[in-house]
């Protein structure tokens, strides 16, 4: 009669979290703001139409920067809210492995990010009316963007697990995300080149989100980049699980 216990708990947590996103205005507000921001940047700043090229490069270019603020806001409540309300005691006294709780919550927030991304598909469709874009490259771009969104949410989850204050979780997550993203910017890299030489700079760049996202933007799925994002997610979720479990120790 019983299902695989860990998986069943994970799915239950996942469903509850998605439901909670949908029954409170948060998710709707975030998705609306995201769509507005991405539209603004793509057309006004990126000049999607002005460049007279049927591709979505100006659209994808802003994803790291918008995600960096938008996704910590989606993820900040994951654990902080449970600590604040005391409901964490309910979760931790369920006969469920910690990973099932962590993963269920992460996947729910990731789903919200995926929905936000899906809602930008009309832009892709429009491109196909206006010209003949490289659809496989755009598809790769979407996959990379989704994977990158997972990384930002995992960072948000990790920060949410260490504080009962959502706003603190948000600020910390934006900070960590910013550092990990900006590490790959020429401006930052030049600074380090002057300071510590080329080898260090190159190593730093490899740890930056933007470095791996840009690689995927060129239309090739590099194993290294997939590995980078998956490891980053795993690392942050591992941290989340440790932080959650640490409560048991008092």
């Amino acid at each position, binding site marked *: 009669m019983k299902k695989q216990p860990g998986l069943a708990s994970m799915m239950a947590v996942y469903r509850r979290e998605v439901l*909670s996103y949908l029954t409170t205005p948060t998710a709707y507000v975030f998705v609306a703001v995201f769509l507005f921001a991405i539209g603004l940047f793509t057309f006004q700043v990126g000049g999607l139409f002005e460049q007279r090229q049927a591709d979505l490069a100006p659209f994808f270019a802003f994803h790291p920067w918008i995600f960096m603020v938008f996704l910590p806001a989606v993820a900040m409540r994951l654990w902080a809210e449970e600590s604040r309300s005391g409901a964490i005691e309910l979760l931790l*006294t369920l006969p469920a492995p910690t990973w099932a709780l962590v993963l269920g919550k992460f996947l729910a927030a990731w789903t919200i990010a995926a929905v936000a991304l899906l809602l930008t598909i009309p832009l892709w469709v429009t491109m196909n009316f206006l010209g003949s874009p490289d659809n496989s490259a755009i598809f790769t771009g979407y996959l990379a963007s989704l994977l990158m969104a997972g990384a930002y949410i995992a960072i948000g989850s990790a920060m949410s697990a260490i504080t009962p204050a959502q706003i603190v979780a948000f600020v910390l997550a934006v900070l960590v995300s910013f550092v990990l993203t900006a590490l790959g910017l020429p401006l930052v890299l030049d600074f380090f080149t002057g300071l510590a030489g080329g080898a260090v700079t190159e190593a730093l760049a490899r740890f930056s989100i933007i470095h791996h996202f840009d690689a995927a933007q060129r239309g090739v799925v590099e194993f290294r980049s997939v590995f980078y994002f998956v490891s980053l997610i795993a690392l942050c979720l591992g941290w989340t699980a440790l932080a959650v479990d640490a409560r048991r120790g008092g």
Partner: protein
Amino acid sequence: MLLQVDGLRKTFGRRVAVDGVGFSLDVGEIVGFLGPNGAGKTTTMRMIAGYLEPDEGAAKVFNIDVARERRRAQERVGYLPEGAPLYGEMTPWTFLRFVGEARGMTREAARHAVRRAAQDTRLGDTIDQPIETLSKGFRRRVGLASALLHDPLLLVLDEPTDGLDPNQRHSVRDLIRRLGQDRGLIISTHSLEEVEAVCTRAIIIDQGRIVADAAPAALAGEHGSLEKAFEALTRGEERA
């Protein structure tokens, strides 16, 4: 033996919250946990429920060590945390189904369990109203229903009647009495009258240690009344 607690000890920083608590509990017993605020009641209950791990000692549910085999032990315990935290935006129905499914029940089994627990706790029509709109009494009942959902033999209820009006308190006490017939219960409370009314045994804790463990009537007989026993056995000083 339903529950065997041996030498439980828990410190938070330099403060010793629980200092060598030990007792056992069998089916048919309703133990009242008494003690001043900060005496270690909640911490002890949290260790039995697997929310906190003890520094020393062990709590064993059906001989399963809670800290070592947490999930197996937790499957056998129904726990109501202090203040009965819930998810306000959910309805009792969706919340209880979530608890059932997170406990590994199939959808059908969870639905069945929710119906039974809702009946036991007399949730009635409130089952489809958002929890945040419910009165304190009904919220407490939702918490109780979630503790009863998997039909555990051991129930650990932290202040199940705290903040309820006299009628609500009365109905929760009736429920506790009914449950106690074929289960083992630990309830913490500040109401001495409640212990006399429903408990078969009273355990008084002070500064992390058990200072009395006897039938309420025996304690009352020895000291004149349960209130006097409480006063005499606990130092009565406020602790942070």
